[in-house]
């Protein structure tokens, strides 16, 4: 095994070359927060996934579903609610387009609209909760219904807080501009996530 001597000339060359290439001394690394958020939302999605699969298992194991005597779920109000939530995803995207054009008042308008839509959704959910014919402990269907929608509702609430925080910050001059608007983007991505989860949830609980 010969030929293992080191071509020191090349190595030195290599080193100089690389050193120049990376001479960007003490530069900040690129913004990885969006990527981190997506990974985090993936993990959140896995919690929902676990709960969905538990729900499906309970459903498959049960002799009849929903168990006999359970009041049928009303479809009208949740349907309207779903429509509101899904359209809010398009509304919040307008905010993103606005800030990319440096339009802060547009950002405020669209975020406020989304917040209101989210709040209406939550209010609708609460209304449904209080007018259902079953409670948390009525049967396994009722329990899964409340835990799934409740856990999702918690996420909606958190989304509302996020959007209000963005609105608050947007009052500060030049806090968000076309270059720097992580908060806006993060709130938007989070809101889309909440939406997608709701669609699956709605299909599972109400339609299927």
């Amino acid at each position, binding site marked *: *095994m010969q030929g*293992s001597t080191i071509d020191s000339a090349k190595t030195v060359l290599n080193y100089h070359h690389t050193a120049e290439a990376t001479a960007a001394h003490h530069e900040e690394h690129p913004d990885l927060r969006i990527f981190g958020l997506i990974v985090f939302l993936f993990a959140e999605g896995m919690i929902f996934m676990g709960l969905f699969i538990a729900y499906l298992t309970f459903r498959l*194991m049960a*002799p009849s579903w929903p168990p006999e005597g359970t009041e049928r779920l009303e479809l009208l109000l949740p349907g309207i609610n779903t429509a509101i939530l899904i359209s809010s995803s398009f509304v919040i995207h307008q905010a993103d387009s606005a800030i990319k054009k440096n339009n802060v008042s547009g950002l405020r308008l669209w975020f406020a609209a989304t917040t209101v839509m989210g709040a209406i959704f939550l209010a609708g959910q609460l209304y449904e909760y209080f007018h259902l014919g079953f409670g948390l402990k009525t049967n396994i269907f009722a329990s899964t219904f409340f835990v799934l929608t409740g856990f999702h509702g918690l996420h909606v609430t958190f989304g509302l807080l996020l959007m209000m925080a963005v609105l608050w910050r947007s009052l500060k001059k030049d806090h968000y501009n076309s270059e720097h608007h992580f908060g806006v983007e993060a709130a938007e991505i989070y809101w889309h996530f909440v939406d997608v989860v709701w669609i699956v949830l709605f299909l599972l609980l109400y339609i299927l």
Partner: protein
Amino acid sequence: MLTGIVLTLVSLWYGQNHGLLPIAASEEATHVDNLFNAMMTISTGLFIIVEGVIIISAIRFRKRKDDNTDGSPVHGNVPLEILWTAIPAVIVLWISIYSFEIYNEMGGFDPMAANDPHAMHAQAKMPGAAIAAPLPTSEELSSPKSNLIAIGVGAAAKNEGKPADLVVNVTGLQYAWIFNYPDSGVTSGELHIPVDKDVQLNISANDVIHALWLPEFRLKQDAIPGRTTEIRFTANRLGEYPIRCAELCGAYHGSMNTQLFVQTAEEYNTWLQSQEVASNSPGEQVVAVNPAKMSDREFLAPYASEMGINSEILKQIHPTDSHNQI
């Protein structure tokens, strides 16, 4: 080469003579033992190779004094790597197939025991809260209402399709096993079975999950509240064997033991008759009644060392929930 032969011989010898397993009291247990012996042989060989290489490396390739150079720059060797990927792959494949066959012999694929949701022996739904349920009566046990899946080890391959010679309903509760013979109405705290007969145990639990373990038969099945599981086996050796609970079920889990008696047909019938007489005698004989509202711990402490409920007092079961928690 010589090391290879010695290695093979040592592995083969140890794989057959490890003496780690208890007596095998059924034909299926012997099959399981053969599987274990085969795996033990392979494992011994691999174990010796790995430990050998480590020891040889530590001795032969340790750094000599004043030698500060590096070893040879070997990054890998594709044929060698393919070899040590392929060999384990073949070994585990072979073990899988072998396990599959033995599992089939044992009756793991018996469709009666597998997953027919409306199988005959599925258990009735628990009437009360599972946690504080009274003991189910034999009628409840035999009524096929539930759709919950009954699973376990079914009839051995040679008995498939035939009904079992003897069916026993087993109920686990903190901290005892109750055996109910539906044909004769006998209920006992010990399991008596005739030798060379195909026995089916329908297992359920009243409070928490238990597991019925018959070490000498290499059989174990969880007893799950709300489900009935089954195991079927044929004892081929007379004797008295332990029955243990293998799933953590509370503070006295370790003392949830009883005995399995494998008897000749005559002995078994004598025992059965004596039990029938006893259980038909009048009188309110109650088993394991907690006289006062004591906690489990206080109540059970004196019996900790021999918790299994013994057959003398276990003539008849009456629902008793006086010592249930909750």
